[in-house]
């Protein structure tokens, strides 16, 4: 009966964001791959080149956005997959927390790296 379903946490928002980020990622990921493997061959990657790109505000913000959306999309995807397999109760809460912290660490670390290249926020 209906009362068995007490969790009225709307899944719709996350579902929609998963799709929106996916749509965004299609473009950025393709761009990213193309740039770093085809235009600049992998063995040519150096700190200097990365630095040169990162110093442009557009590229810098695009990469930050890329990082955030990819993190959200990936981590949320993992979380969903676990719920789909019947993750529930306190384990679910724990997983949620761990994934949240991991994403945070990832984003912070990513931003710090980007800043190291750009030598501060490029303005």
């Amino acid at each position, binding site marked *: 009966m209906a009362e068995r379903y007490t969790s*009225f946490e709307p*899944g*719709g928002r996350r579902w929609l964001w998963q799709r929106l980020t996916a749509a965004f990622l299609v473009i950025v990921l393709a761009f990213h791959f193309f740039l770093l493997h085809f235009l600049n061959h992998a063995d040519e990657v150096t700190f200097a080149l990365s630095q040169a790109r990162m110093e442009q505000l557009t590229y810098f913000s695009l990469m930050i956005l890329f990082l955030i959306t990819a993190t959200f999309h990936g981590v949320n995807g993992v979380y969903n997959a676990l719920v789909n397999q019947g993750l529930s109760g306190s384990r679910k809460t724990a997983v949620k927390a761990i994934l949240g912290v991991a994403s945070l660490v990832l984003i912070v670390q990513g931003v710090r790296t980007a800043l190291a290249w750009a030598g501060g926020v490029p303005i």
Partner: protein
Amino acid sequence: MSTQVPEPVEEESSAESVSPGKQKRDQKKRERAQRIQEQREAEAAERARSDDDTYHLKVFRYDPEVPEKQEPRFDDFYVPYKQGMTVLDALMWARDHYDSSLTFRHSCRQAICGSDALFVNGSQRLGCKSQLSDLSEPVRIEPLPHADVVKDLVVDMEHFYDQMEAVEPYFQTNSLPDGELDEQRQTRENREKVKMSTRCIWCSACMSSCNIAAGDNEYLGPAAINKAYRFAMDEREGEDMKQRRLEILEQEHGVWRCQTQFSCTEVCPKDIPLTEHIQELKREAIKNNLKFW
């Protein structure tokens, strides 16, 4: 080919003193033994008999109370083929002629009662709606996957029923006409829109085929979501009710769990476009939420 003759074969007794029933039974036993013998030979002589007049069934057996059946096993049955014979016909034949303890649900024999959804040669089908001639031999018949087996081919349906009943599966409206002879009008288009969704016969084939339903016990499942669709899309219920229905569907274990595997749509014996309905509801829910965000 051992298991369907549980009783030890009796000695040939003096035929005069036994009842006609028993005589018959002995006769049948002998025939049966003979048939088994024949089948063995036939089998040995390679399976070039596929166009012959018997079908080979491999049927899942399990009974928690019968010692020999506590460990699940497959039994072989060889059933004489008749034009138009279905998997259900073959099972009934095997039950009535070989082993009366062979257990399965069935009733209407015409794909409307939904009791005989089985796992046949690797997919969920209604026994009564599957022609033997469309299947390759041996025909492997198992109970529906992802459900507890009660006995042989019978599975516990309670969970499925619970999910179906969790979506408030009944018509609710605030705009009933006053007179008891006045109809609530509905456009043809709207009836057409809900038509397919009303065809569900609660067979649970879809639920059994869905990997998400298998993993997440709370997932409403395609059939229940389809049931909700049937009402949510019915214009007679009105906007307020639709809102409420979407809320039920939007819960964590509702529509969002569906990963568009499409297997539900593929196995549904009533050809209900389940994935399409689920997807439509997701979009409806998003649209609905955007109004409020």
